[in-house]
């Protein structure tokens, strides 16, 4: 019977399924793609760590190789492998950054699995390896990378080390297996000695790894290292890096998943809506079945079976569609991850893990749950129920008060939940508040719709408009469900638009306050702007000496392991910043005082996330483990920084150089003399660069544009997701209206009989669609603004630790609402046509 019903109305089945499938697909796609991104990164880390089970690094970068000699006795407990790391980019394609592992190539096969191919294409012979080993320019690239960049083994190729152009000899290739597949091919291997020279790390190591003989040996090794070395050294298992990556991505992933869940929720509304309509349409049949002896339980099971079938087919299609979407999402997510967090080229793996299927199952259960209320109503239909509609509406009318009460309670709950602190760095209560807010909005929709219709009836309206209002109220049970779905879709869209818009304008404001220099310079190898590539000392001197340059501000930053997460410890020339530049301070007070303090006493600034997420306040002390020993520095002030959600500890260059024994430079801010235009300055700087150097030189305007481009790319996936949510909601309007019309066939027939023209019937339907779009849109706008408040002040603040200034993009919002209204009117087009084609007299006969 149920199947027959759905095949009789294939369009509604299709639309409902499409809605369900889209919701599930979105969740599946987000899970799949973020998992794939993360596991690809973890796999790469695993391949690069090989069998190493202990790793030693120092806070702030490389350490003296004398540590290696000092730790020689630990060789009794396992293989000990010194490492130098670095980054290279081919001169021809600086975007294709290479992670370089400088290892002891004589023995690296004891730790990592890869196969070296010689210039001939066959395995690189042992004696060939030994011949190339002492060469100060030999590098091994992955097959994939060499193919993509048209590089051949046995030839020289041009690379960028920071801002320096070098020619390296490609001694061989890493076969496309094992570690040769790490980082999607963006890995290069060279001998330790070569790497030390190339990366200016003579006498230094970045890491020492061990492959211990047993777990007991690993433990005693770790204990011995901790005993032997000062606390600025970090001793960890290489797999602990995975946890750090996971932590780093958690907030980002959770946000995307929450958005996807809202879409799934919209899909569930659609099912609820569709199922309710199906039950209403078959009241007569159900009554007959009951009369023929079917029990309440039978009807319940029958209807639930229907929901299950919908859920099952929807989930199946959703998983399938999700996989397709995941490939697109992977590009977007991956791009974002590498922009925001790390250099994470993505691998191939999109595997349907148990976790993905669990989410699909959850989607299925949600659909089943959405089908439960209609099923319960169906089971309460008494035997031989009259086919006349109305009874379910009266049933609905009875529970209307309860619904409204529940809605108010949900909103009160949302307000309460929004006050609660994050759990494990995640705004779990914030998400709960968001869902409570949405649930409350859905529950309040019938009441609000009724109030609206009552009020609107007093307006001077044409008869069709008035009739449409009456129809909406008499079919409130169904129409409010469709409107509620629209409220959710629009609410989601509005909230995200407000959040992203506010965020964007905040960032623009911040860029204006922070970026004051005329030109920004970074090594050419650092195309992505991560400020991790070294800049030559002679480059810095040449830029400072260029005619027209008033001052340069040197920037140097390092990744700092803090409680298992990556913090950014950065430095610049505070005196220059004070004289020429500025900083967006959050702490109230005179910036001059802060700048003075940084220069006169050892102290730091911390960026906002460290205040919002970790509670550091001005005046507190920030503990640091440095190569010069542990110390804790007073926090002079908190400043705004939207470039890093983990947080930055900022200090004067002088202090940094002393503490970390590091005088590297990653970037320069160049201030020009008055009257020198950016173009003139740019030319002068480029002309003055030492030969063989290559840099990125951006004007102030260019850099701002670049930052916003990254910003927009980050939110591309968010825009795509809210679009899908609105689409599903509009589909809901279409199904509801069509169903309502079919159900009201008799009424329409009476109208026609009474002399209403086809046009008048059509117009009534349009009015109905319009009213629904208007109410849904307006309510959605209100809910969306509330949700945006929650997103900005609770969810975003707790997960990223940033203050976002509220700025609603009203123009965009009204434009979007107009489109929603147009879409609902469009959705009314088909039902209106159906209605106008209904025959006149025939339908009235049963009455």
């Amino acid at each position, binding site marked *: 019977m149920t199947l027959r019903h759905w095949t009789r109305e294939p369009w509604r089945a299709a639309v409902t399924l499409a809605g369900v499938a889209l919701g599930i697909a979105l969740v599946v796609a987000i899970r799949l793609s973020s998992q794939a991104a993360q596991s690809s990164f973890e796999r790469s880390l695993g391949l690069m760590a090989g069998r190493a089970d202990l790793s030693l690094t120092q806070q702030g970068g490389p350490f003296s190789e*004398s540590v290696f000699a000092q730790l020689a006795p630990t060789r009794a407990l396992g293989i000990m492998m010194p490492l130098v790391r670095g980054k290279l980019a081919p001169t021809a394609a600086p975007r294709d950054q290479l992670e370089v592992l400088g290892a002891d190539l*004589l023995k690296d096969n*004891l730790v990592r699995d890869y196969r070296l191919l010689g210039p001939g294409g066959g395995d690189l012979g*042992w004696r060939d390896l030994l011949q190339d080993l002492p060469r*100060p320019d030999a590098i091994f690239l992955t097959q994939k990378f060499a193919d993509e960049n048209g590089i051949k083994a046995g030839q020289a190729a041009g690379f960028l080390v920071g801002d320096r152009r070098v020619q390296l000899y490609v001694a061989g290739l890493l076969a496309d297996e094992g570690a040769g597949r790490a980082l999607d091919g963006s890995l290069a291997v060279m001998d330790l*000695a070569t790497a030390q*020279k190339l990366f200016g790390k003579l006498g230094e190591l970045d890491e020492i790894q061990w492959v211990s003989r047993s777990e007991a040996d690993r433990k005693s090794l770790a204990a011995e290292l901790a005993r032997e070395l000062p606390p600025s050294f970090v001793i960890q298992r290489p797999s602990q890096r995975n946890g750090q990556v996971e932590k780093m991505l958690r907030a980002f992933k959770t946000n995307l998943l929450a958005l996807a869940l809202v879409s799934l929720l919209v899909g569930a509304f659609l099912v609820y809506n569709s199922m309710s309509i199906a039950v209403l349409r078959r009241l007569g049949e159900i009554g007959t079945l009951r009369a023929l002896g079917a029990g309440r339980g039978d009807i319940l099971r029958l209807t639930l079976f229907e929901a299950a079938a919908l859920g099952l087919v929807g989930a199946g299609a959703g998983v399938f569609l999700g996989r397709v979407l995941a490939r697109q999402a992977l590009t977007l997510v991956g791009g974002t991850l590498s922009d925001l967090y790390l250099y994470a080229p993505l691998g191939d793996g999109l595997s349907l893990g148990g976790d993905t299927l669990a989410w699909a199952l959850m989607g299925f259960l949600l659909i089943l749950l959405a089908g439960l209320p209609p099923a319960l109503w169906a089971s309460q239909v008494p035997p031989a129920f009259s086919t006349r509609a109305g009874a379910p509406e009266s049933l609905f009318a009875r529970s209307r008060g309860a619904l409204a009460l529940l809605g108010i309670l949900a909103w009160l709950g949302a307000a309460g939940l929004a006050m609660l602190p994050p759990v494990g760095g995640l705004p779990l209560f914030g998400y709960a508040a968001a869902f409570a807010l949405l649930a409350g909005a859905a529950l309040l929709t019938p009441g609000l719709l009724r109030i609206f219709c009552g009020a609107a009836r007093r307006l001077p309206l044409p008869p069709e408009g008035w009739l449409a209002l009456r129809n909406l109220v008499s079919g409130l049970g169904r129409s409010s469900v469709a409107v509620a779905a629209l409220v959710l879709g629009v609410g989601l869209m509005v909230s995200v638009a407000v959040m992203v818009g506010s965020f964007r304008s905040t960032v623009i404001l911040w860029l204006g306050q922070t970026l004051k220099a005329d030109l920004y310079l970074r090594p050419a190898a650092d195309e992505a702007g991560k400020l991790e590539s070294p800049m030559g000392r002679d480059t810095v001197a040449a830029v400072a000496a260029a005619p027209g340059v008033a001052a340069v501000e040197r920037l140097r930053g390092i990744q700092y392991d803090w409680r298992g997460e990556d913090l950014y410890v950065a430095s610049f020339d505070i005196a220059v910043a004070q004289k020429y530049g500025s900083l967006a301070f959050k702490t109230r007070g005179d910036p001059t005082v802060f700048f003075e303090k940084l220069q006169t006493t050892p102290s730091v600034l911390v960026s906002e996330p460290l205040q919002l997420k970790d509670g550091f306040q001005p005046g507190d002390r920030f503990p640091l483990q440095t190569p010069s020993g542990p110390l804790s520095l007073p926090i002079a002030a908190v400043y705004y920084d939207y470039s890093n959600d983990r947080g930055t500890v900022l200090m004067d260059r002088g202090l940094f150089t002393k503490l970390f024994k590091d005088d590297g430079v990653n970037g320069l801010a160049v201030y020009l003399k008055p009257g020198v235009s950016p173009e003139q300055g740019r030319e002068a700087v480029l002309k003055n660069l030492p030969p063989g150097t290559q840099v990125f030189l951006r004007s102030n305007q260019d850099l701002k544009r670049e930052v916003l481009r990254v910003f927009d790319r980050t939110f591309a996936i968010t825009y795509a997701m809210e679009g899908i949510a609105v689409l599903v909601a509009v589909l809901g309007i279409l199904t509801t209206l069509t169903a309502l019309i079919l159900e009201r066939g008799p009424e329409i027939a009476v109208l026609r009989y009474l002399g209403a023209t086809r046009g008048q019937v059509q117009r009534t339907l349009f009015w109905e669609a319009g009213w629904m779009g208007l109410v849904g849109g307006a309510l959605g706008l209100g809910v969306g603004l509330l949700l945006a408040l929650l997103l900005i002040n609770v969810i975003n603040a707790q997960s990223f630790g940033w203050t976002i200034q509220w700025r609603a993009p009203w123009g965009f919002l009204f434009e979007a609402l107009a489109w929603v209204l147009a879409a609902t009117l469009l959705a009314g087009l088909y039902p209106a046509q159906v209605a106008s084609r209904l025959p006149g007299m025939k339908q009235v006969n049963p009455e």
Partner: protein
Amino acid sequence: MILRAALLLCFMFPGLAAAADPVGFVAAKPGYVWKFPRDHGNHPAYRTEWWYYTGHLRGPEGQRYGFELTFFRQGLARNVDNPSSFTATDLYFAHFAISDLKAKAFWYAQKMDRPGPGLAGAASGGVSVFNEDWRAFHDGPGHRLQAQGQGRSIDLLLQSPFPAVLNGTGGYSVKGPGQASLYYSFPRMSVTGTLSVGGKPFPVTGEAWMDHEFFTDGLSSDEAGWDWFGLRFSDGTDLMLYRLRLKDGGVSPACAGTFTDVRGRATHLTASDIRAQPLESWKSPRTGAVYPTRWLIQVPKLQLTFQVGADFADQELDTAESTRVVYWEGSVGLSGQRAGKPVKGEGYMELTGYMP
């Protein structure tokens, strides 16, 4: 033990040996002026160099062990434009083996390292070579050897009753047309010290053989393998022999030996002085190599005839983690006659190039 490892290295670097383009290295020349202890030390101007110690040890309860501790240096390049202390200008290999002659059990370990920092190296001026925590160095007039691994260790002091014995002509040992090495030995050093087996140390005494050899072009490319003997006779004399087997099945005319009398005076032996005939063989179950483990050796010039055989068959080393060759090097015993009188003895035998 002239060229033994030369052959090993030759198999490692067949191309290098044939390339004859030893940039930055000098060739061994006749008339080398030896000066000790300077020449016990490193000679970085030559491409290949090794310090070889083999010997026999006796414990207080009559335990009998053979040991081998060898250090190789293989120069890869000179004048490299990289000041990094990790620069692989040389490769250092080391092998450490213990033969338990009663239990007929053989154990070995190996190391391979670049020089620095502090990984492996050899100093000039005297015996001073190390590879990680294995080392040989001057301790008073003697050589001290220290090595350990997997519950086994040695800490031995070796002293020779007489000065270094120069092999070949004044220590210039010709290996073929244009190939030669500089080579001296201490064939009979007295040993005292400590041996640990299974983590249990006990005092040992015994006798050992030391070889030190360096060269740039050591072997010709038509040679297939190498048999070397370092033997100490019960009458206080010693004999070193090596045979170079050619790829065509013959024996190289460069085969040679050195006989040392009780006072340390050397007699140089050439190919025509030596007759050697394999009597028994053993096939390695691991590698399939078939080694001649018992020989009949005659040196008519010295009125010497004896049989020498492995104390037990399985003393094979597979050095995939260092020199990347498979060879047999182990403790041997001998019995025969010299000038009509019965003579016994012990020593070490090395067999290379027997892989199928």
